[in-house]
């Protein structure tokens, strides 16, 4: 039984990778690359929200400021893309260390407010510092050859570059979540006093998770710079912090695939609804309302719950899960949200 589940997973993974590899032949590659950047950003954010239960409202600072630094490193200092994204990651992680050290002392709404306040400070720096060029942003960032050898100038090439960065980032998140460290994070999410009573220094774990999430957000932000060849205030504004929350929750927090799906949905809406004209934001709003009403667990969360219920119901009608749910009279209950 377990074996077949594992094999299924492997099969899906291979199918997913093949789909990602051939996708640019069908869909516009720059758009796909953008989706991947935001998917990585949302996945990094989900590491914190979904697995540690910390709602940060300041992730735009890591994403956006890393974007500025990456852009500056490539455009002004003339380094290659590998240096740009490593700088972005380091800047994100560094900021994350400062934010985390201050914010993890508080919980819930206070944690969110502290991160928001700190992010606004970073926004202010981005607005004022001469190197960011204020509201004009850093424009015309060149796509230099990777390692000085591999040309990533074309849209297809940049897509595969972003895909590689994305897979590495998601792999890091996957390994983190499925490691003993990840188990401790989840235990903090479920019951922090209990984790403390078991002898874990939860603040340290939370801080490490925060830095990791911030660093990966920085990686996503600086990769996005290479796709669009620009860094602007949009990326560092508080609305961006809101957008990543939206992507994660829409897709399904606490799932590996959720944030990726959420990012794809949100970015596609922004992109394709752009052609609708003045109705763009209204249509977006309506879609979000529908999603929140229908998929409380997020798209992936809801789908997973549906598949679980289908697998369980016909095969093992007498299973303990079913009996636990038997208190409720309606048989469709496991499907609902």
């Amino acid at each position, binding site marked *: 039984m377990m074996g077949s589940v594992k094999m299924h997973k492997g099969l899906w993974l291979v199918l997913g990778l093949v789909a990602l590899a051939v996708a640019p032949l069908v869909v516009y590659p720059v758009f796909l690359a953008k989706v991947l950047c935001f998917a990585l950003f949302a996945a990094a954010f989900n590491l914190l929200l979904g697995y540690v239960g910390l709602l940060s409202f300041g992730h735009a600072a890591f994403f956006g400021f890393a974007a500025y630094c990456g852009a500056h490193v490539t455009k002004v200092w003339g380094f290659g893309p590998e240096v740009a994204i490593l700088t972005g990651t380091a800047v994100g992680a560094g900021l994350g260390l400062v934010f985390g050290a201050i914010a993890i002392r508080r919980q819930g709404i206070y944690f969110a407010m502290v991160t928001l306040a700190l992010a606004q400070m970073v926004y202010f720096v981005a607005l004022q510092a001469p190197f960011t060029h204020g509201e004009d942003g850093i424009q015309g960032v060149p796509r230099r050859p990777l390692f000085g050898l591999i040309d990533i100038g074309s849209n297809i090439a940049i897509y595969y570059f972003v895909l590689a960065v994305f897979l590495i980032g998601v792999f890091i998140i996957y390994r983190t979540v499925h490691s003993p460290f990840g188990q401790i994070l989840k235990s903090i999410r479920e019951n922090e006093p209990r984790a403390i009573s078991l002898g874990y220094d939860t603040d340290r774990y939370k801080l490490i998770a925060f830095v990791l999430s911030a660093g990966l957000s920085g990686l996503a932000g600086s990769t996005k710079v290479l796709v669009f060849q620009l860094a602007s205030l949009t*990326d560092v504004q508080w609305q961006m912090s809101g957008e990543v929350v939206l992507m994660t929750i829409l897709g399904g927090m606490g799932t590996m695939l959720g944030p990726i799906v959420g990012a794809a949905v949100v970015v596609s809406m*922004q*992109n394709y609804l*752009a052609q609708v004209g003045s109705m763009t*934001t209204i249509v977006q709003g309506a879609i979000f309302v529908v999603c929140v009403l229908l998929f409380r667990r997020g798209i992936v969360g809801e789908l997973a719950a549906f598949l679980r219920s289908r697998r369980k119901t016909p095969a093992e009608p007498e299973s303990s899960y079913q009996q636990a749910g038997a208190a409720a009279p309606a048989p469709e209950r496991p499907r609902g949200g």
Partner: protein
Amino acid sequence: MSKLKTALMAGIASVALAGTAQAEITNNVVKIGVLDDMSGVYADLAGEGSVLAARMAVEDAGGSVAGSPIEVISADHQNKADIAANVARQWIDTDQVDVVVDVGNSAAALAVQEVTETKGKVHLNSTAATTALTNEKCSPTGVHWTYDTYALANGTGKALVEQGAKKWFFITADYAFGHSLEENTSKAVKSAGGEVVGSVRAPFPNNDFSSYLLQAQGSGADVIAFANTGGDFVNALKQAQEFGITQSGQKIAGLLVFLTDVHSLGLESTKGLTITTGWYWDQDEDSRAWADRFAERNGGKRPTMVQAGVYSAVSHYLKAIAAIESDEGKPVVDQMKQTPINDMFAKNGKIREDGRMVHDMKLVQVKTPDESKGEWDYYKILSNIPGDQAFMPLSESTCDLVKQ
């Protein structure tokens, strides 16, 4: 030398192309993409109205050029530079768009300038304010049509000093846009013989301007200039009215104010405001006639200068295509640069090598409710600012297309 060369090249190109007329219109369609903020702060002054202006230009050109039909498509960049860049790229790569027009929001405009330059497509900008479009970010296929911060600052600064308002005080939005507006205006004020008695930087965005206004009021300045825009401007102006600043004899200068701002604020709070504008619908017979047609299809709303700029730019672009029978980016823009612009927007306007469309600006004053004869009758024209005095001289340009 190089001018001669480009002229020769364009000449040769047009001769060569003349024989193969239709083949030189790529995909046998001229596609115009209007890219702007359709739902946010710029939606009112550009937005759908700009799309309408572009459509009107196409209709007035007969719906086709050089034997090929003309299409207009539009998108909302939601004030995000990355969406603007992505849409522009996608339009050019997969939708065969030949020209991107309008593009408000300076970050979005610069992003589009970058994309269009690399792809060799045309960018006709009307709504963005930044002078970077014709300086460090100038492009051989980019034209900046209606106005820029330099022209606004310069026009208002010089004109008010000449009217006797010598002492200036600035309330400046504390970011790059505000700084450059203040700097340009100060320069104009000083060179006209005025002086700057003080300035204060207000955070951006800001709701409460009372302390800055009190400072300005106490400074003894003749003019209080607001180097800000949008919501900041609206807040500052309303509060200035509450402090009775204009009643006590000080003048207020708005450095970036659109007709729609005046419309939504109302004449009671804007009366007496001195503004520089690229165009006003009631400036002459031609503009009135066009504005009437526009308003009829725009729910009665009169066009702003940037919407008129879109019409003028698209018309001129289509004429250039008709002349050389090709829609290839650089040759079309070169052709546009060779012909003067004479339409309801500008008289004897011309496009310089840095892409700046130079035309006369207007210095206007907002009417009082008594002077206004009805809705949209808001400005009285004080003076005409000749194009060569209104815009940044080529000698100051940092554009690398300008040979110095």
